[in-house]
């Protein structure tokens, strides 16, 4: 449900001095715009569709790149659509994966309809139940700074819920061509595009 943190500032805090070993998969919609606003990077794989798929894309990357840190940063609606992924990830336990949900309790892209988290669904409890050993609630700046620091030295499967405001800052639209996003991400890892 809705919190007090500002989404763009929260993303900027998490991405500050991110390092070349951080790979980021945002969800479609607002978290993709937030990530683009924090600074474009070849190691971002923006989503423009595939709702419910962000966490599983992150899992595939994390398993393939065990020496890199992988952050899935998505919205509550996107995470709810693919909630089974939390169970799948819990079974795999990739130590280099963080799933971070920017939770404002609404579907911002479609007119602000309330999401299930507004109705009381507790994503942190879900993640804990799925086997995420570290689950954090981020409701203020101190907790956000702590999450940013955990992300810097990620050493175990992590889930975080970041309680953000339900506002909608002006959109910052990154590259939309999927093949370009794919190729540049792979090239940044030294793979043949």
């Amino acid at each position, binding site marked *: 449900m809705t919190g007090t943190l500002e989404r763009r500032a929260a993303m900027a805090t998490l991405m500050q001095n991110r390092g070349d070993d951080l*790979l980021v*998969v945002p969800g479609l919609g607002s978290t993709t715009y937030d990530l683009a606003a924090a600074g474009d990077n070849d190691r971002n*794989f923006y*989503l*423009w*569709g*595939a*709702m*419910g*798929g*962000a*966490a*599983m*894309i*992150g*899992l*595939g*990357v*994390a*398993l*393939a*790149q065990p020496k*890199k840190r992988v952050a899935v940063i998505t919205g509550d609606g996107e995470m709810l659509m*693919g909630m*089974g*992924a939390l*169970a*799948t990830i819990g*079974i*795999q336990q990739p130590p280099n994966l963080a799933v971070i949900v920017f939770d404002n309790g609404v579907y911002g892209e479609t007119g602000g309809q309330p999401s299930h988290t507004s109705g009381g669904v507790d994503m942190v409890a879900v993640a804990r139940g799925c086997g995420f050993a570290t689950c954090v609630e981020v409701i203020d700046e101190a907790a956000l700074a702590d999450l940013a620091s955990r992300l810097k030295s990620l050493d175990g499967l992590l889930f975080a819920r970041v309680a953000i405001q339900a506002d909608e800052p002006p959109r910052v639209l990154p590259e939309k061509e*999927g*093949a370009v*996003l*794919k190729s540049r*991400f*792979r090239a940044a*890892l030294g*793979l043949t595009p």
Partner: protein
Amino acid sequence: MNALPPDWPDRLFDTLKRADIRQVGYVPDAGHSRLIARCRDDAAIRDVALTTEEEGVALAAGAWLGGERAALLMQSSGVGNCINMLSLMRSCRFPMLTFITMRGEWEEFNPWQVPMGSIVEPVMKLCDAEVYRATKPEDVPRLAERAVQQAFGEERVVAVLLSQELIGKKVWVK
């Protein structure tokens, strides 16, 4: 039925190994049980049990982003679960290799398997997949090899349907 266990799942496994498949997503399935067991026993393959098949599509995309090849094992009923996620593969030209065990055709006991089973081929084609069908054990290795080459060479979704005639009917009364 078969006195000896069929060996096509082992041939399929050989193909996955030759293709250097490192992540195998699957929803538990009787027709794939032998292949799933082989993947689980192989230290170089990460077996990823899924709660729904579309997770395996997203997993394959992530694996490729990270430089690994993945495969998705599913039953015909899982194809319907994948449709929107397959737009990810087409939009980004991700390679995806999938082996689909068919239900709802040869000697199917459960009529509820028919609606999805009967539309797997057109649905996959509408999703821009190349589709092959194996009906005899000897079809499996060559179609699987072809699928590997096409999926990773052309960067597209390639499905090999393993027909119910090949798999054998499900035994309901044990």
